[in-house]
């Protein structure tokens, strides 16, 4: 792959960083507004970085369901904004907004940007379109989908997943390993909503939702907010933590059409097929250099399809990849070390970026003993806590990648390195 001239002034590889991350508790029934949840997560990110409100002047958010707009949260927190933007979007918006935050800073509009996502995704607005939305008249594009009982994410993606099984012989047991591995990671994560380890049998014997998706192939729905803070490397070292430096970003890359990506096959190919040509060029690394991935797991299949199309294995070998043990903590390239959307909580991808930032710092929260300053003394024993393990820190970590998913036809990516 041809590299580009990274000495050019316009070239942004390694010039920006994430300096703070924060989240609320992952819960079902937060008992508060998305405004209160949002300020909670942002304040945690500010405290994490040790940055005062006076040194933040940009804010961005996204939502596809419930949220509260940036200026409200900024006002509550005493942050005077020089730039804000609230956009519509679900999964894979996190990485895209980090790229746009870099652009806003580069354009001189502001200097330090908070990106947040706040949602009562279980107690208020669930993704599947239940509640009041089920009675909204069906018109326009939805006449070709919702009218067929083809509405929720799982229903929408199912033909893509099914065709992968047909084309490549992928088995339910192989794909179930994504949930199994993420549940192992979640068991060592005090913040995870689901901490119980599950087996392949648990997954394939769980209730069928929409073939090929069993209940345990689907992510958890939770109420939570998440936030991170982006600034230039010039400023990034003024704050409390070692920054996670941004090597490259690709945002909202699409297949030829996203409303019916099925018209332009192969339909078991997803947006990662196109993203890889942008993200690895921008970051100056390839999949072989990535030591830890955050492949969006709205469903077990979404992690698998992305890892395959980004080139972590050959096309069609995703089933082998996810069931090989590579993705386990202690494996060659762990995936979603927090438990991800399948187990930790559902935040449209933000929690997987937060996780990788902490991994790069060597500071993930787990059940290892703490020193006098509250820092974990990592054992790198990934057995369950009750068996003397409880760790989930990846040792000697230099480079991570997030693979953000919106739908088969759209995704984003972010590559970071240790600061």
């Amino acid at each position: 792959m041809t590299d580009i001239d990274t000495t050019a002034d316009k070239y942004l590889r390694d010039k920006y960083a994430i300096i703070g991350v924060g989240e609320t508790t992952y819960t079902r029934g937060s008992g508060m507004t998305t405004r209160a949840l949002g300020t909670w997560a942002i304040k945690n990110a500010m405290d994490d970085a040790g940055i005062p409100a006076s040194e933040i002047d940009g804010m961005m958010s996204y939502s596809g369901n419930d949220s509260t707009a940036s200026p409200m949260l900024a006002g509550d927190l005493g942050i005077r904004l020089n730039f804000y933007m609230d956009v519509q979007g679900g999964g894979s918006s996190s990485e895209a907004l980090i790229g746009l935050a870099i652009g806003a800073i580069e354009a001189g509009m502001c200097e330090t940007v908070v990106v947040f996502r706040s949602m009562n995704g279980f107690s208020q607005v669930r993704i599947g379109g239940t509640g009041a939305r089920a009675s909204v008249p069906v018109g326009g594009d939805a006449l070709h989908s919702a009218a067929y009982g083809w509405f929720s994410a799982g229903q929408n993606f199912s033909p893509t997943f099914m065709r992968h099984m047909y084309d490549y012989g992928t088995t339910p047991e192989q794909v179930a390993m994504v949930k199994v591995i993420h549940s192992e990671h979640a068991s060592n994560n005090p913040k995870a909503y689901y901490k119980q380890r599950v087996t392949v049998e648990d997954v394939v014997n769980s209730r069928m939702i929409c073939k090929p998706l069993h209940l345990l192939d689907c992510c958890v729905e939770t109420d939570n907010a998440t936030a991170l803070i982006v600034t230039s490397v010039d400023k990034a070292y003024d704050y409390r933590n070692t920054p996670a430096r941004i090597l490259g970003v690709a945002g909202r890359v699409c297949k030829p059409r996203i409303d019916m990506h099925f018209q332009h096959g192969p339909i078991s190919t997803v947006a990662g097929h196109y993203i890889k040509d942008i993200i690895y060029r921008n970051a100056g690394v390839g999949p072989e250099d990535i030591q830890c991935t955050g492949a969006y797991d709205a469903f077990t299949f979404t992690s698998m399809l992305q890892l395959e199309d980004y080139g972590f294995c050959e096309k069609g070998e995703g089933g082998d990849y996810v069931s090989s043990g590579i993705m386990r903590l202690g494996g060659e390239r762990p995936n979603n070390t927090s438990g991800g959307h399948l187990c930790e909580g559902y935040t449209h991808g933000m929690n997987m970026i937060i996780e990788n930032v902490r991994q790069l710092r060597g500071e993930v929260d787990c059940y290892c003993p703490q020193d006098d300053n509250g820092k974990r003394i990592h054992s790198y024993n990934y057995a369950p806590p009750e068996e003397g393990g409880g760790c989930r820190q990846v040792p000697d970590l230099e480079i991570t990648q997030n693979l953000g998913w919106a739908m088969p036809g759209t995704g984003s990516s972010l590559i970071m390195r240790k600061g």
Partner: protein
Amino acid sequence: MPQGEYLGMTLTVLDLDNENLAYFQHCADHDFHLQQCADPECALIRYPPGTACPWCSGREFNWVPVDARGTVHSYGEVHHAIQPAFRERAPYMILLVELDTQAGEPTEHEALRVAGNLVDADGNFAGPDLVKQVGIGSRMRMVFADVAEGLALPHWTLDDEAEQPETPWRYPQAVNGV
């Protein structure tokens, strides 16, 4: 404005939505039509209805009759329905049927893949015995479910006149016999 109740949902085609108005009027006439690019050098047919040609960006088009037969390219099979009226019809199939017309054009992996539910020859939702006969490779023909004046939904049923594969590909795990 064509509007009607269908499985507990209100289906509406808005007055300004000219492409869908024409598409669903043809469906209401039980005469499947799609848009064909009016540029003779392109002349590709497209689905779903849209406002320009995805291959040449041309805005001019003509509605042309299309033979509504094809092969199941992929499917989803819903066992846990969300919309209330679909619950009593579960398990139900969401089919993507690749039309014979324009299959593999303009490039190898492109085709007109038309969505619909699996229904019987009379247009009623398929029962479990029919669902378990259909999978990737099944040969299908279109039938219409009338909703209102100017509005019918295209659906799919097994094409009795076509040669069917001995065993269409189905997801390997049966649920309650389906």
